């Protein structure tokens, strides 16, 4: 998808975001309650630029190298691509590394 040679992935994400945005707007507009009867609240993301940009770039490098983001990694494991188990194990290791170095990183 990063070669921009196929529309497929952009169609998927675009459709999901447009329908998702309509859904979220309707939930807010009509104060729709969830299954348990509680008001649905959307947590705004914390402000900041550095963490989102730096983290995003690092994730993007891994996404393009493995060809999968976290959800599809485990879908691929179920599909029978057991090499993805290695990616998943090391993704957990990467998450641990972030937790370990968190306080030393700019956010």
């Amino acid at each position, binding site marked *: 998808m*990063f070669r921009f040679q196929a529309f497929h992935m952009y169609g998927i994400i675009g459709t999901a975001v447009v329908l998702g945005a309509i859904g979220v707007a309707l939930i807010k507009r009509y104060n729709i309650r969830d299954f348990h009867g509680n008001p649905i609240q959307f947590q705004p993301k914390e402000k900041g630029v550095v963490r989102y940009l730096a983290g995003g770039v690092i994730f993007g490098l891994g996404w*393009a190298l493995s060809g999968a983001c976290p959800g599809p990694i485990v879908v691929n494991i179920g599909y029978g691509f057991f090499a993805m188990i290695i990616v998943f194990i090391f993704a957990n290791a990467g998450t*641990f590394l972030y937790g370990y170095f968190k306080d030393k990183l700019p956010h």
Partner: protein
Amino acid sequence: MREFLTQTWSWWFSGTMIAAIMLCLVYFGQSFGFSSNMRTICAAVGLGKKVPFFDFNWRSKSWNLVFLVGAIIGGFIAHQFLSAPGAAVQISPATVADLSKLGIRAPTSLQPDELFSWEALFSVKGFLILAISGLLIGFGTRYAAGCTSGHAISGLSNLQWPSLVAVVGFFVGGLIMTFLILPLIF
């Protein structure tokens, strides 16, 4: 119906399903974000004793681990019951040409054998590619506090600026890897 499901799903159907999953999770009081599972797993195996970031009540996030197991089962069902025999993932002819220049043949199933077969896994280079990509994904998603589901789908749907910054970052990283680093590796 079966024919509709066994071919590669059209982009609008897949996108609609993803939005439906996100809104379904919201309706049941949760949120759609996959990469936080890896923080939960780190906490569940006891790393919270060493690193405060993993010291939280991970059981409150166990619903998301159920979602993870469901995604694995979904992949299994897609392969066993919903794939037409011999069907390969449809990628653009231009991409096939670019990949062949890197020595990677078009996939006969969902992924190219050169990267995801057992032989690839047991070669040093193949293993390093898988391991390093995993590290980058796990580190980057937590640093950015979300991945494709948490930022590109949930965040953008809620019109969050930080999510747009993160998605721009995803693309910068993806483009650097695709056009600058991959040609050096292969």
